């Protein structure tokens, strides 16, 4: 006996096997990311004032990546439709575009977004020292307006050796624009277009600092969740791209020649996974970039 319904539908359920399988798998994935998003909620609610940065990520780049993923979701459907119409050549091109979209997304993430964070420096100030750095923080101004106060000075660290060398007693930071002009009402809220770093060097004494470092996962719970969730999402994108490459290569053409419906089913199933990965990003983007 052979396993039935691998390609054709079972009459009473109206489904072939892998279609049920992928939906179940996606249900499980929902729970996986659900666990991570509930961690996001827990940690964000628990975060002390000033420890959950707003508007820190690059919104235009995030928007572009969102558009790329959505576009790839469209092309994968077109690829599937082309197979259904038995147009292998069109399928080949649509699949190529889908793969390229996935690769561009990952490249932006790994070449630009993540390394940018690893170069960015932040120093949380001790509560007693906040007044000392008032000219950079502008907390009096924020207090008047009823906005959340700032406890961290961020920018680019000039003397990187200060992180390791205990004989150096201060950090020299080329601060982000917000700290160069903290009372400017324009700085009260995050911007869509990120402002370029300034040349203004602020010297922060180590004795005034509670905790300082680059924007790595251990910097605060925001970056911990950011890197974990985008990292896991990135692994999903990578997995999808690898599967698509397999289906785009000549190996899969043999399946097409044997039974075109078989390849169409495979593309449908992996396309469902791809839409799911896209959907997760639709949650990731507002949670980290916008809110």
């Amino acid at each position, binding site marked *: *006996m*052979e*396993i*039935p*319904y*691998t390609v*054709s539908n*079972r*009459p009473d*359920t109206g*489904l*072939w*096997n*892998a279609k*049920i*399988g992928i939906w*179940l*798998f996606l*249900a*499980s*994935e*929902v*729970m*996986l*990311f*659900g*666990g*991570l998003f*509930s*961690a996001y909620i*827990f*940690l964000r609610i*628990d*975060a*002390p004032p000033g*420890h959950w940065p707003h508007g820190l990520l690059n919104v235009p780049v995030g928007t572009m990546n969102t558009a790329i993923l959505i576009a790839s979701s469209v092309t994968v459907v077109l690829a599937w439709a082309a197979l259904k119409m038995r147009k292998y050549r069109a399928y080949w091109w649509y699949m190529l575009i889908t793969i390229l979209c996935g690769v561009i997304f990952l490249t932006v993430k790994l070449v630009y977004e993540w390394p940018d964070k690893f170069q960015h420096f932040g120093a949380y100030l001790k509560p007693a020292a906040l007044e000392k750095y008032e000219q950079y923080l502008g907390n009096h101004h924020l207090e008047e307006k009823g906005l959340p106060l700032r406890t961290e000075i961020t920018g680019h660290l000039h003397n990187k050796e200060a992180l390791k060398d205990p004989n150096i007693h201060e950090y020299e930071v080329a601060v982000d624009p917000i700290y160069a002009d903290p009372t400017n009402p324009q700085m009260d809220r995050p911007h869509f277009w990120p402002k370029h770093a300034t040349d203004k060097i602020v010297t922060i004494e180590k004795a005034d600092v509670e*905790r300082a470092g680059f924007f*790595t*996962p*251990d*910097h*605060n*719970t925001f*970056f*911990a*969740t950011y*890197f*974990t969730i985008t990292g*896991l999402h990135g692994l999903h994108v990578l997995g999808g791209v690898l599967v698509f490459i397999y289906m785009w290569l000549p190996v899969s053409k043999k399946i097409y020649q044997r039974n075109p419906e078989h390849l169409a089913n495979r593309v449908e199933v992996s396309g469902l996974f791809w839409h799911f990965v896209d959907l997760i990003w639709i949650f990731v983007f507002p949670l980290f970039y916008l809110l």
Partner: protein
Amino acid sequence: MDASASLETHHDPHHHDAGHDHHELGFWRKYIFSTDHKVIGIQYGICGLIFLFMGFSLMMLMRWQLAYPGQALPLIGHSLDYIFGKGSMPDGKMAPEFYNTLGAMHGTIMIFLGVVPVAFAAFGNFVVPLQIGAPDMTFPKVNAASFWAFAVGGVIMLVSFFVPGGGAKSGWTSYTPLADIADKGPNFHPLMNGQTLWLIGFIALITSSLLGAVNFITTIIQLRAKGLTWMRLPFFVWAQFVTAFLLLLAFPPLEAAIVMQLMDRLAATSFFLPAGLVINGAPADISGGGSPLLWQHLFWFLGHPEVYVLILPGMGIVAEIIANNSRKPLWGYKSLVFSVLVLGFLSFIVWAHHMWLTGMGSAVSAFFQTTTLIISIPSVIILSAFFISLWGGSIRFNTPMLFATAFLPMFGIGGLTGIPLAFNSADLYLHDTYYVIAHFHYIVAPGTIFALFAGVYFWYPKATGRMMNEFWGKVHFWPSLICMNVIFLPMFLQGMGGMHRRWYDGGQGWAVGADRIWGLTGFQWNTPISWAAWIMGLAQIPFIINFFWSIRHGKKVNDNPWEATTLEWTAPSPPPHGNFVTTPVAYRGPYEYSLPGTDKDFTMQNEPVTPTERTPRKASGEPVLA
């Protein structure tokens, strides 16, 4: 339909060259890297049984320390120090860290490497496709991948015993912040340390159960034989179906939590580390802001459905064996099916009853207290239906039936003693005492594990074509039953006396322990308990010998030695690759025993309905009550 045409091709099981899909495979492909659900089921079963005995052995070591704290373990104490690394058993005496490792790994191995692989993966793999009349699982390669992911997870867990510093020590629950900061420091490797390996091993095990769960559900939905409608499914299949959903949906949040704990340990994040944490008198170099409660929520979101993952397959096995050996239809089939579905659903909304003492707040506690009490209703329905099924039956007390009937009161004790724990006011007192240990072990040890033994004895002739020895089966059963109760019954007394479950010295230095319970103090009760545990270890020897001896020397039997009704007994024993000689078709419900108007007391599911039967019946799946 071309699929059904190939289904009906007649294959002689003994001549594998007959069909185009039948070709002889080499030893490695046939027995090791097989994609056949029966081989995978047996692989899971044997690995799981070995892990069960390993986990039990860890506990037998702990029982020495509890009964004779601080004394050198005779005979093997010194060699254990050599095997598990210097300092684990110095001079044959158990070190506290090693005791913690044994405790944590006992729980982990028993649940995730022992009971779940045997109850869900082994029985599910071997029996479910046969019972639904399918040639295999829907995704045979995924099935093999599931087993090998399990094997990788098991090896990682075993390796963790032998890395510097020993295995995980923070309990099978790995509560944070303790587990976050455990096994760290100059004496530990950053990656190859007990707790980190525990986490990595777990990711492999979760992958395995995810692949298995997807496969099981799809198989049950898609590959049911013609005529095998949902209400004609054997109860065992229903139990596995719900179990698969629990694994599918409850494990991923734990995986998320495990990824976060790995990040905490490897990337120095603070998911579960609160601000201001002081370790060994020094403020920790962490960002803080994390939530230890978050771990507990995510852990128990798996942890509680997991309890039902442990028990539901056991209930399924017991249902099959009770119906078969009482020669009566299972009583209340429909209510059993709906109970198991309700149980599966409710098991997702009771998890926080493991966290009464974390200060969640009374509103949250009240909610979870309510759901916890509601979930006892379907459990009681299932147990009652099993008891009523015995009523008026002509019961055969063979070995599987002995284990299955012992399951009923044992599970009953375990379940009823859980009700005081469901009330948070009573739990204030009983929390973290031996009472809790006794409660859940009554469900899992003499409950589930007895059901597993019952299943092994019951389906052994299907897997091998030979019976296990009845006499040695009984020699296995009676000492196991007595020892189980000598082990766990006194623990209720110890726990109600206030004995804490995590004491390394067995409560020797415990002031309240001078009170006597039935002539012995709480501490003194450890001695008979420990001896019962070791005797129970000996009582497993007849089973082990019987299991392997019967493969070649057991009594040869026909395809249906128990005179059972479900479809797996229509296949040859052992079933060939592809399972059935002719395509099975189901014409009736799963438990048509002692049907009036028939000349034998069992009517198999593939026997067409004859005019002599007392017809018509109410619904297709409704068993006829004799």
